[in-house]
């Protein structure tokens, strides 16, 4: 059977998560590979969450927040933008495909954008294939 990637989503409560709900209420279909964690603000996302997600076997990680300037907490996503940018560079230099980590600003009114992003991202991850690098394959791994 074809490769069904596991994609972890982390969405801010006020914009992207609501946007995702909107995608639902408007019955927009998109691939089911995404599993969303809800946080209050994209700025809550600790870079280590991203590393951990990949270690847990995520083939891709999608972070969603309010558009810069619309953050429910005013400036949260402006910090997040910088921090996550650095996270991406680190993953890239470590040798992971940077496309596996994506940050999108999706407002509460952009249900369609949410659906599009997920569809597109899932497709991209399928092309990339399974993420084996950071994934913890065996807990009892020897030194």
């Amino acid at each position: 059977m074809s490769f069904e990637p596991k994609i972890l989503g982390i969405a801010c409560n006020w914009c992207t998560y609501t946007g995702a709900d909107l995608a639902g209420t408007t019955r927009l279909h998109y691939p089911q590979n995404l599993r969303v964690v809800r946080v209050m603000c994209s700025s809550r996302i600790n870079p280590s969450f991203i590393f951990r997600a990949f270690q847990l076997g995520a083939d891709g990680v999608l972070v969603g927040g309010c558009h810069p300037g619309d953050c429910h907490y005013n400036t949260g996503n402006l910090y997040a933008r910088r921090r996550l940018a650095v996270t991406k560079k680190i993953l890239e230099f470590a040798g992971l495909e940077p496309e596996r980590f994506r940050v999108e600003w999706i407002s509460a009114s952009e249900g369609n954008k949410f659906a599009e992003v997920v569809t597109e991202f899932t497709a991209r991850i399928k092309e990339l294939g399974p993420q084996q690098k950071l994934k913890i394959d065996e807990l009892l791994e020897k030194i």
Partner: protein
Amino acid sequence: MTDFKQIENSLKREAKKLLESAEVPVVLAYARGYDEKHPMPFAAKSVADVEKIVFNEYCNFNMARYIMRFPDAAKIAVAAKAADSRAIVVLIQEEKVRREDLVILGISASGMKDPKTDQLIDSRTTGGLYNPVEYDILLGEEIRGQKIVSPYEVLAEYEAMDKEARWAFWKSQLDKCIRCYACRKACPMCYCDPCFIDQNKPRWADKAPQSPGNMMYHLTRFHHLAGRCIDCGECSRACPVDIPLYLFHKKVAKECEEMFGQAAGMKLEDKPVLVDFRVEDSDQILK
């Protein structure tokens, strides 16, 4: 070439003055270790101590990390080479120490050596600056006319690698890690105690020295030092298994400089880039 003896003498002279003038109870400098080649960081607390002070091409320790050890000292004098001074600037930016509480004895030096390899310490493994960016007294001549090589030049080779090769490289390197944590302890910017990796709520990674934990520890540490690492190379020199951590730190520093237009520890008035933002930051940086 730097006249180390001359710097040692002026270091002694200034230390003596300061300690006599009682306003400064501690002078952070270097003393002889178990042999010439292995000097040690040293805290001179009395005029008598001054005689123990040495300075030679192996005094490559970043003294900034010792500043916070004397919370109740009114004022601290610290011998600071280029990298040390940048570290100090970051500490001041982060309010770990107040500028007015420091007497920075700037040292312009080139030709420092790594005792392990006896190789020159230059822009390949460090920021490669010769002169301190911040000081009260400059010991020795400011070094001019030395050809400045970009500290990021060494990265070219690794940036050129394809992802798989680079992953293989870092995996093999980081798998060597025995988690002695010398890197973080040697780092003047790593002053957290406990460190996130020591936390058991949450346990970010297991304690055992194996891939997943090592990855989590190092990647996160690279992130914590983003925009703060002043590229002194101490982490790599401290590492008993020779992991070239400086490469990764350099890369992150380079990216930060390109994205946010600011190098760490160059200006007192700067704010560390990751606790700062500009509304006009471009979304391109996320692409």
